[in-house]
């Protein structure tokens, strides 16, 4: 925690200045004045360095260092800055679970998590589940049971199931429904999702996974 505290202090001192805060909200023309190229192209790119702070993330076991605006969600950074588009954007307000990732092994909505909040924690996305080209037990079970239709909510469902089974290796159907209730599927694949989680639980036990 010592490192975190130090970093937080750093951010407060140098990161979020009043000027940077205003620029990051896009209020006024501070950015244009500072960069001094006001005419046709006020600034070379949209991202104004004034509003950015360093952020260190550990995603799927790999460290990433990047500059972020404090308001950026983990979802935004994963998809727009790191190209990890397996994590899906559904509602951006914590209602659908399409963006579910694991933070220290626990299911979390990436849209309601600021990128800066994820610092110091291990983030796992759907891209992190495939090892040596092999599907995880949950992924395999989703294919085998046809626990998906359009597939857009599927990465989130898979991550929610992964989190559920890590916490509870042998859930009852009731517990599966509870554990998966934060993930919407408009195609209505729920029945097959229950079966897939059941199948994955059995396969994980058989495979010696916790």
């Amino acid at each position: 925690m010592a490192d975190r505290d130090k970093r937080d202090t750093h951010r407060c001192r140098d990161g979020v200045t009043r000027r940077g805060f205003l620029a990051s909200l896009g209020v006024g023309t501070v950015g244009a004045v500072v960069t001094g190229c006001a005419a046709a192209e006020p600034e070379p790119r949209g991202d104004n360095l004034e509003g950015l702070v360093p952020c260190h993330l550990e995603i799927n076991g790999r460290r990433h260092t990047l500059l972020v605006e404090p308001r950026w969600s983990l979802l935004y950074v994963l998809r727009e800055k790191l190209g990890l588009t397996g994590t899906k954007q559904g509602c951006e307000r914590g209602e659908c679970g399409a963006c579910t990732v694991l933070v220290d092994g626990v299911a979390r909505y990436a849209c309601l998590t600021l990128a800066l909040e994820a610092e110091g924690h291990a983030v796992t996305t759907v891209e992190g589940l495939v090892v040596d080209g092999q599907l995880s037990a949950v992924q395999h079970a989703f294919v085998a049971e046809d626990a998906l239709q359009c597939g857009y909510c599927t990465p989130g469902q898979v991550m929610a199931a992964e989190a559920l089974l890590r916490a509870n290796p042998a859930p009852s159907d009731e517990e599966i429904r509870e554990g998966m209730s934060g993930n919407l599927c408009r195609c209505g694949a729920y029945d097959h999702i229950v079966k897939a989680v059941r199948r994955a639980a059995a396969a994980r036990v058989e495979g010696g996974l916790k």
Partner: protein
Amino acid sequence: MKAGFGSQQGAAVPGGPPGTPAESSAATWGETLVVGAAVPRVDGWQRVTGTAVYPLDLQFPGMLHAAVLRCPHAHARVKRVDTSRAARMPGVRAVLTAASPGADVPWYPQRGKGPTSKLFDPHCRYAGEEVAAVAAETLFQAREALAVIDVEYEVLPCVAEMEEALLPGAPPIHGGGNRQNETLRYQRGDVAKGFAEADAVVELSFRTACEIHTPMEVHGSVARWEGDTLTVWDTTQGVFAVRDALASALGLPRAKVRVISQYMGGGFGSKLGLNKHTVMAALLARATGRPVKLFLSREETFLCVGNRPPNRLTVRAGAKKDGTLVALEMKALGTGGAYPHMPTSAYLVTDLYACPNVAVEEDNVFTNTGPGRPFRAPGFPPCAWALEQTIDALAEKLRIDPVELRLKNVPSVSQQRGGVPYTSTGLAECLRRGAEAFGWKAARARARGRGHLRRGVGVAAGMWGYDGEPRATASVSLFADGSALLNTGASDIGTGTKTVLAQVVAEELGIAPERVRIEHADTGTTQYAPASGGSQTVVVNAPAVREAAQQVRRELLELAAAALSRPQEELRLAGGAVVTPEGTAHPFASFQAFVASQPLVGVGRRHPHPKGKVALPFVAQFAEVEVNTRTGEVRVLRMLGAQDSGRVMNRLTFESQVFGGIVMGVGFALTEARVVDRRTGTVVNANWHDYKIPTIKDCPAELTCLPVDLQDRECNSVGAKGLGEPATIPTAAAIANAVYHAVGVRVTDTPASPVQIAALLQRREG
């Protein structure tokens, strides 16, 4: 009478075009090896690993992000739009308004006369109508720029409720009053005479709420120009429909517009045609010389990309003592919001049951609400909600079992189409086999429970009224290594289309489905297919694919027969080899003539619909519910869908469709309703927190899919009928009938919320 299905923009033209083969070239299969099996999706790996790239995932070098400014008022006139401040905002690269070059695009074009609109219409007719759009380096910047666009509105009085649209003094939404068209009428026989002869008559009035599609992937497009050629990645059910309408909106030749939608995150009818935001993305991309990505927010998807229109329906049914229906009458009122749409359907009343005397009147009105669009079986679930509850009430009055009453009135011909016979009708078998598998008689007789938790069971039937656009082309290329390329324009919207079509190729060519690579849903590189909607995708495309594969098969057998000096009829294809009657397998690659001329290519087309017959799917669904009489809550404990959709092409994806349809029906029955503030005309629950779609906990714990395959050899060359729509048509009505059985109150309005049911129970007690 109208068919229940159509696209909202660039509507497809039914009927076979010139050049379509006159007859089906082949009888459907007898025994199959691959078709019908529970083959896992060919793209399952991509979908569970996050490697499937959806349009919303796309990024291109230099790509800009765009957002749309929408009118906050339900009815207003735009007097002035000042974008000067927005244009100077950081990162802003283009601002688009009605005054921008190329933005004067007509919208909602009507065949013949009727109201139309524009891409940016100064007369805003619902809260959410487009006023301007901005492209910027980031989405944050685009949205920030929208906030400083200065718009002066003249706010007009609005009408949000369809019942008020025709009242004197109601504000006119289009010139010429708020009636969308003259009352639509259908009549056969003499209903007055029919009701006079009836021993029992029941009349009930219903309301169904406005339901929103809300697919998981929001609507949107990425547009990129290369010179005068436009490529659009759109999350759509129909790339060709989008291409045609987009080319026409921009005045471009069709060949210069390429639309791609290989993975897409659900549509349910809301993504059948061209959207305004796609045109805006193209115009912004042209103005900036950069690729532009324009996707809606979740909230916007509740406002401007369609809904299942609210209906008000009154049904009157009369029957003889023995249950023979003698008269059916329906009066319907619906609204497609501010823009033309077919908001109601009386199809089921006119065709589901044999009845000599039928009369229907449908009134469609304009209101200051978001536009309706086709939504999984447009008009049918509301019509089933009304008709099937009325039939249930009639059965009670006649003291006849509801399954028996329906069985008494099963037609063998389509009365609505003037007595045309069906290629097959499984309505009776769906009812019979469904009742047996569900344990209907025992469940119906079971005590309904004591205390505050009451159980009941209900049944409802249905059919789907659209047999598809009989027009599609596909090509198949087979290599000597036993792999094949399938080229089809069809979109796989999650129904498993790609997998089913790969199975068809595999079946004909004796190879494994995973040896088939599919190129699809790209107007630049793939063959024509109609939009994936209306339950037509498999029934239209699978026969074309089969014909293409059969051509390859014939060519291969011909050259193998010559090489082996055997008659062709003796040879079969299996395991990537030509197999002789003795069981000797000659791998494809062992034929020099094949290796030298590979790939063998076949091109197939969909043949016309069978002459003098109609191929439609049928369904009966059964529900068991538990009603909490203290709270008015309904839990759906179990449901069974008995589905006559002809041949089961894939047992896994067939079941997924049926269960998905049922879950959607549970939402329509119990929780879903767009809520519009009557005074302001604005939607107050435009998000998934306040608009409740079913979660996994609302899905019945016990679901059964019972295919009823009557081995239809006439419907088309694969023997399959539509499935996606019929799976959701009777669900809500079956649940309502089960609620009635449990607690004896008739829930006439969707959603059957605790508030409504508690009030009904109280009224009954009171």
